[in-house]
């Protein structure tokens, strides 16, 4: 009940915006810009002929592959950079230069290296989500409170126990923050990549709807679906905050 109450102002705002949109289209007699109802019927049409699911599936697959690769790469590397000063000094400057380069700027190179298949967007997603995760993991290791490392040193535990029971659990909450950022960026990038290089996915669907006869109802439907899926992905990541190895961080 409380949660419904809390969500009420946000819902009201969205309702007001939709009403304003509807009113504006009605008053301006726009021929191209759709009404909210037009978007609903457009979405229904895509659902019925099944293309919507294909596009969503294609986008999610690409994000899954690119993001998964980035996680496998970033976490060990971040831990290593956090723990070994020399690794940090050597690699961090390079990553700080690569990190601000927009994934969009990589598109020509991605096409040159990987062609216009699925490998290009996977590479772009990898490139865009790997750096925030490396940075967060490294920061996580650097910010482990010294008293815990001292305690581990005092008890004289093996390196394996040190990592398994102290370093990794201490870093996990930061890693999760990095993964949330990484997944968010990945979702932004997949749509952009599909707009330029591909023939499936939600980004492609949006461009295709515009090019094939100004179907702005489908453009807006695509945008809203992208927003909702992005929200769902973030919600799933937030649910991970509740697991045992993360929860301690947020329990106060």
């Amino acid at each position, binding site marked *: 009940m409380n949660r419904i109450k809390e969500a009420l102002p946000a819902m009201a705002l969205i309702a007001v915006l939709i009403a304003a949109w509807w009113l504006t289209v009605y008053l301006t007699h726009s021929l191209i810009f759709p009404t909210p109802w037009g978007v609903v019927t457009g979405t229904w049409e895509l659902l019925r002929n099944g293309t919507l699911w294909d596009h969503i599936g294609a986008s999610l697959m690409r994000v899954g592959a690119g993001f998964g690769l980035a996680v496998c790469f970033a976490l060990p590397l971040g831990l290593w950079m956090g723990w070994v000063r020399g690794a940090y000094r050597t690699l961090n400057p390079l990553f700080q230069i690569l990190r601000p380069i927009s994934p969009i700027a990589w598109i020509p190179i991605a096409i040159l290296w990987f062609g216009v298949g699925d490998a290009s967007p996977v590479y772009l997603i990898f490139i865009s989500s790997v750096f925030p995760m490396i940075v967060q993991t490294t920061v996580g290791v650097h910010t482990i409170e010294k008293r815990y490392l001292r305690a581990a040193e005092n*008890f004289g535990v093996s390196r394996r126990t040190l990592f398994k*029971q102290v370093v990794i659990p201490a870093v996990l909450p930061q890693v999760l923050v990095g993964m949330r950022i990484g997944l968010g960026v990945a979702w932004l990038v997949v749509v952009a990549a599909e707009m330029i290089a591909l023939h499936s996915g939600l980004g492609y669907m949006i461009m295709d709807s515009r090019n094939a006869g100004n179907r702005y109802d489908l453009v807006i439907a695509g945008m809203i679906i992208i927003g909702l899926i992005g929200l769902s992905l973030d919600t799933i990541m937030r649910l991970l905050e509740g697991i045992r190895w993360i929860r301690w961080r947020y329990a106060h």
Partner: protein
Amino acid sequence: MRTKIEIQGLKKSFASDKGPLTVVDDVSFTVGDGEFVAVVGPSGCGKSTLMNMMAGFIQPDSGKVLIDGVARSKPDSRGILISQQGSVFPWLTVRENLMFGLNGHVGDNRRAAEGIPRSANGATRDNRMAIADHYAQIVGLKGFEESFPHELSGGMLKRTELARALAVKPEILYMDEPFSALDALMSLRMRNELLRILAQERHTTLLITHDVEEAIHLADRIVVLSPRPTRIQAVFDVPLVHPRKVSSPAAQELRVTILRELGVEREA
């Protein structure tokens, strides 16, 4: 009494903006085996630095720390440090915290000492768990073995920390203002608990405190340090039998004497 800890001419200075700052200046004393020594001194006098050198976390500029006559320069599980902020791992349960120090060779040493065979892995894990639960019970945490630190009160956290230290059977307990973050009542209760536990399992104990009453309550001997750069200013024996009453005339007299050493002439 056999000598357990002997420190000889410890000196330490740190670099500061105004050049080297001498914190500990030529401190020597000995602690007997099983003795409880409290170190009191004005705040910022270098008590913690002294303790950290004794426990091996900081290297002295000169001087030596001998334990059982052997120089020791690195921390190990024969001497466990309990600090004011505490270091109970928030991501492990109470039981896992208590089992932490029993991993690896420490646990092996203990098992060897107690004649427990180094059998299959599963058995040793059960064994470690039994040791952990035993010490949880000793410090009064029975029933909280599965709890996470964030579910515990400040006093229970201290108990966890103490039990984790005791579980590895350290020869020396280094306690750096262990109870000063607790409220007065809880601090008093923890002192009584500590005395009760030490009566069961005797450890050589070194306590750093700014609370003279706490020192009189707990220690066999009290070392009073001077302001920085710290030196030993005076040493007092505490000839009172346990259980002690801090309000007794003898204890109060000692308290006034020590406070005078610390430069506090009269207490309101």
